[in-house]
């Protein structure tokens, strides 16, 4: 593990502003990503709704989703942690 840590980087993705966190594009559809999924840079991983405007949350790196720290439909504050990604 210690060996792996040297070669990878933990990237935290935080809310760019207060808003409601959505893991799926609509209630009937599957989540964008699950823990353990591999993601590409600019891939959509969640939505954030603020005052009826939806923003896409995109992965800033190629890597693997280590942690999804909030439940679907949770109201978040500015800068709340949403994802931890292990960057390639």
């Amino acid at each position: 593990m210690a060996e792996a840590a040297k070669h990878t980087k933990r990237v935290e993705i935080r809310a760019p502003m207060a808003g409601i966190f959505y893991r799926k594009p609509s209630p009937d559809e599957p989540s964008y990503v699950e823990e353990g999924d591999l993601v590409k840079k600019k891939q959509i991983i969640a939505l954030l709704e603020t005052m009826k405007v939806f923003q896409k949350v995109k992965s800033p790196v190629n890597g693997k989703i280590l942690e999804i720290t909030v439940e679907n439909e949770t109201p978040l504050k500015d800068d709340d942690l949403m994802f931890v990604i292990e960057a390639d």
Partner: protein
Amino acid sequence: MTFSKILIANRGEIALRVIRACKELGIGSVAVYSEADTNCLHTRLADERICIGPAVSAKSYLSIENIVNAAKETEAEAIHPGYGYLAENQEFARECESQGLVFIGPTPENLKLAGDKITAKEIVRAAGVPIIPSTPKGIDTIEAAMDLGQALGYPVMIKASGGGGGRGIRVCEREEMLSEEFPVAKMEARAAFGNDELYLEKYIIRPRHIEFQVLADRFGSITHLGERECTIQRRYQKLIEESPSPMLTTELRTTMGNAAVTAAKAVKYFNAGTVEFLVDEDGNYYFMEINARIQVEHPVTELVTGVDLIKEQIRLSSGEKLAYSFTDLNLKGWAIECRINAEDPERNFLPSPGVVEEYHPPGGFGVRLDTHLYQGYELPIFYDSLIGKLITYDLTREGAIRIMKRALEEFKIKPLKTTIPLHLKIMDDSSFKEGSFDTGFITRLMPEEDEDE
């Protein structure tokens, strides 16, 4: 008959607007609020307040059951829906009726028809009001399209029956473009909407959006109260409205005002409503739709007519008669409204929630401010970004612009990003000052950034 108590099924500035009218009329007022709105100003100004559910609008401000129950519990006799939320929901209006509550607004039949734009257009056209010329749906061949295009006159738009909200539209300036674009549009419509049915509509070049306020009583009397110029828009969201319109001649005002009344009569309209038109460069006007509610921009009409539209809504719903016509009103002066939104015009109008740490509202001669903001108020993330309407009035348009500029400069809302700097820029814009603009004004003033970057 008048009401002794009205429940206001809304929040924010429009709830305050209705509460104020109730107070002046000596009518009791009930505010409803969600769990996210315990600090919203309407809950403090109303005589009574009642919680109607959690923060999410679907479970509070949009819950017919919760709102009707709140009205019964507080023994309100009537409900004012404001705008948005349940204001144009015919099921809600019907439920009010069946529960013995007066819905202060149009009839359920009016709401049904206003929501069915195609049928509404057909009824209004049959009454003699022009609509944008278009062809029947389902044009199959290029040859048929070219014949129809010629009959409409260029430019024309190819529209997909399955499209909507601006999607699936191609503008063709000449016949050659139509023959080139038609097959592509057909393939694209099939791919995008699963339906390749196309039709043509006349394309209105550099249109202006002009609407007429109407009022109607229960006995079939209908009048208009002049127009509102609502051409300054971004993505179909109005930013600035004014009355009168800088482009209407007295003659065109009379013609369009009569057309608005004809349209409202044709659909047997009741209470306050707005008849929307597109107007082209040559002054040809086309009926678009009827908005069956009080509108955000109603104050500009109030300032030039002297008529309190909310009080009129209440009065007409209580069964009183309309006692005047447009010519009795003696319109005077000029009113302009700037919508103050918690949005960042520099960052593609992204919302800007947070706590209002510093707040200085403008005042002085000719200034009206409808807002629910106060120092220390935290904007909930759950509701839309309209935080205020700044309206100025003077005898001339130039005077109203000068007052607006001064008032915008006084207005401090920190640290939120708002549309105030954008409005200041518009007040200084030469084509705005000249009154010569069209619906593309904002796109030219603020070219849109790529959504992805």
